[in-house]
């Protein structure tokens, strides 16, 4: 038997400190070997030649480069297009584990849509005093232009990418809801394609639930939210991208292609006869659903950002008149605010009358003086994030930071406390990756993709598993050196 550098207890060193921490490894339990969902895989792995597997890793990279799954890193001119490293060891989730996640995610996403409707209409939740008014009125993610607007089909968040982390057998936490323009779904799909090509024998032994129908489901789901007033026989969908220099351009092109939708930039669009239309070789064609992968600010220069050269002047008027579906709806960012996140359990209870199925990570709101003083005196143990941040930028991971980095962050925090929240450093679960010497545990998170249409919520089994490739690292973001894994949800 090959030596496996993996167990329940892992000592790790960061920033000159030694932590003896216990992490939950999803594949191996110290005493019993492979856990249930991994048993078949682990037997297979043990009989594989390590050299052959490493060659497969190289093959996978060549394959990704060839098809051009790359992303651009902001602020790195030379490395204009980079590959997200792919690890060939799958992350496996048992059917019953997934069933619970699915229920929890659906509950959450329904509550968020109810909350968004409420916050842009009657604001019952504020009147009931369940969340403070200042959190909404003073929030730059709140979009006054959306007040009183009814999105076609009543859907605000057509596509969500809920980030989950795990700390134990039954302990899943929601880290972020990502209800603006979550990315990564193309990796979920291409990772699976790659694994199917490389290890067909595993798929005959294990019942892995397929993910490949995502683009068709997305198309159907978006079509179901199209405005009823459309002159087109069937809803016309377009994907709006900021262009080929955007970090997720590959994904925009990929999704448009897979859905059979046009990929447009704002300069392809114009308002014609009160509807949004795209310039084709034969004149203008009306669009019913715009799956936009641009921020609110770049949607309509007339409404949001007069300095912007991007965007479609007047699109918000068309939207308010109910003549186009924008997915996701403008103004959903308020639900992504990290200070608001801490109220999610209350929000779920308020709109569904149920307790939240999935746990929230305990969160200190630095706008509150008591919380702030606690955070300031415990920076080295906490993770501090900007309330509007994403992508792993502008955050502090206390245990991994140097004294100097902590001091610099402290200054920023004191200057604008309301801009930050803090959370305990979670003992994220690990899943082994294929390292030079065999399996080695690395921290992971999971982003399942959720599609919301007027009559249902559909969650693709699995999602994108991101993995921190550096030993001991807790940051899984691709912009910060993270990689991905294929995620297998097993059938019953």
């Amino acid at each position, binding site marked *: 038997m090959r030596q496996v550098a993996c167990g329940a207890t892992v000592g790790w060193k960061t920033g000159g400190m030694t932590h003896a921490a216990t992490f939950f490894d999803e594949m191996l339990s110290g005493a019993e070997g492979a856990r249930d969902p991994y048993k078949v895989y682990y037997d297979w792995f043990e009989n594989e030649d390590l050299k052959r597997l490493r060659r497969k890793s190289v093959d996978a990279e060549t394959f990704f480069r060839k098809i*051009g799954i790359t992303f651009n890193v902001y602020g790195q001119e030379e490395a204009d297009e980079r590959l997200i490293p792919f690890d060939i060891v799958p992350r496996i989730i048992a059917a019953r584990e997934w069933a619970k996640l699915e229920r929890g995610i659906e509950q959450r996403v329904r509550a968020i849509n109810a909350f968004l409707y409420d916050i842009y209409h009657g604001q019952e939740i504020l009147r009931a005093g369940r969340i403070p008014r200042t959190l909404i009125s003073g929030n730059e993610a709140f979009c006054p232009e959306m007040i009183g607007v009814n999105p076609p089909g009543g859907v605000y968040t057509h596509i969500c990418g809920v980030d989950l982390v795990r700390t134990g057998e039954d302990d899943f936490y929601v880290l972020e809801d990502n209800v603006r323009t979550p990315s990564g779904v193309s990796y979920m799909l291409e990772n699976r394609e790659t694994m199917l090509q490389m290890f067909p024998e595993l798929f005959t032994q294990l019942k892995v639930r397929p993910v490949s129908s995502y683009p068709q489901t997305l198309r159907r789901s978006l079509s179901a939210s199209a405005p009823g007033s459309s002159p087109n026989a069937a809803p016309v969908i377009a994907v709006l991208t900021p262009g080929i220099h955007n970090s997720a351009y590959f994904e925009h092109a990929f999704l448009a292609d897979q859905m059979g939708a046009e990929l447009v930039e704002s300069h392809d669009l114009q308002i014609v006869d009160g509807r949004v239309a795209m*310039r084709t070789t034969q004149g203008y064609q009306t669009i019913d659903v715009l799956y936009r992968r641009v921020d609110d600010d770049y949607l309509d220069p007339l409404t949001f950002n007069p300095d912007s050269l991007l965007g479609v002047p007047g699109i918000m008027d068309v939207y308010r008149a109910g003549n186009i579906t924008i997915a996701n709806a403008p103004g959903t960012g308020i639900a992504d605010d990290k200070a608001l996140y801490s109220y999610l359990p209350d929000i779920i209870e308020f709109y569904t009358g149920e307790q939240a199925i999935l746990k929230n990570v305990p969160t200190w709101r630095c706008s509150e003086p008591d919380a702030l003083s606690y955070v300031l005196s415990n920076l080295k143990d906490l993770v501090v994030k900007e309330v509007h941040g994403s992508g792993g930028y502008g955050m502090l991971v206390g245990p991994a930071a140097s004294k100097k980095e902590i001091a610099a962050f402290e200054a920023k925090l004191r200057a604008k406390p309301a801009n930050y929240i803090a959370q305990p450093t979670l003992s994220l679960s690990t899943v082994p990756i294929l390292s030079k010497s065999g399996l080695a545990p690395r921290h992971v998170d999971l982003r399942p993709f959720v599609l919301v249409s007027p009559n249902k919520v559909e969650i693709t089994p699995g999602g994108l598993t991101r993995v921190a490739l550096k030993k001991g690292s807790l940051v899984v973001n691709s912009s910060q050196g993270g990689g991905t894994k294929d995620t297998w949800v097993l059938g019953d």
Partner: protein
Amino acid sequence: MMLGKTAGGLFWMFRYLERAENTARLLEAGWRIALTRSSNSESEWKSIVTTAGMNIGFEAKHDTYNAANVINYLLRDKENPSSVMETLNQARANARLVRTALSSEVWEATNECWMAIKDELARPVSERNLHDVLAAIRYRTSVVRGALHGTMLRNDIFSFSQLGTFIERADNTARILDVKYYVLLPSAAYVGSNVDNAQWEVILRSVSAELSFRWLHGGTVSPMMIADFLILDRRMPRSLAFCYQEIDECLKQLQEEYGTRQPCRDKADAICARMRGHSIEGIFQEGLHEFLGEFIKSTTGLASAIEENFRYYG
């Protein structure tokens, strides 16, 4: 239905691919002449750069026309927007822009072409490895063309791709002829010196037609025959007549698919008619240089009419 932007992206993607290939061909022809002829290789190199239309940029940067300078300027100079590498960068950027319109094989062939050539051109190219580099460029661009022909639907996507290819090719052949027209003129031909034979050879080689010309015409070579071959012979895939036959076909397809006749078709018809109405003798009488100048101008005019009629940009 196709976005105007997509039509423009396809058109330019294939223009740039064609341009990269043509530059490589021209360089190959020039290099061969420089190798096989002992005297004054500097003027040979200069003639290549002039034919490629890059002499102004070149002279701004280099004092002498020698192999190393010319090879690297034409192949990989970042400041030369027409260098093979910069052209392939543009081709790939356009391919990314229109990715949803391409079959995965065409996209992958384009991407692999770019990756492979980028790798080849990462370091200065010497005469020692020039042959391999040029062969790689020809091979990689051929794979893209093969994928296009083997895997794409014959719809508007294909038509715009082909329009880009043949507009660029027609322009390229006409420019080569125009830069060299003086060696084809009767007065120059009477000189009958080796210099002129070599110049004809460059012309034929730069459009990879040296052997096919010999096949068709045996050992007889006259300036008028070469001009006829490159201008009016429809069997020759880089001749002006051939290019326009293809352009006409694409515009006809688009008219059928869209059910509208666009003004650019009239322009193309007029150019085709002019060529049909001419014999090579007539062209020489009218003046080869004048004919080519007029041709280049009307091809540019046709390209902008296509751009406008099919709303590439607005």
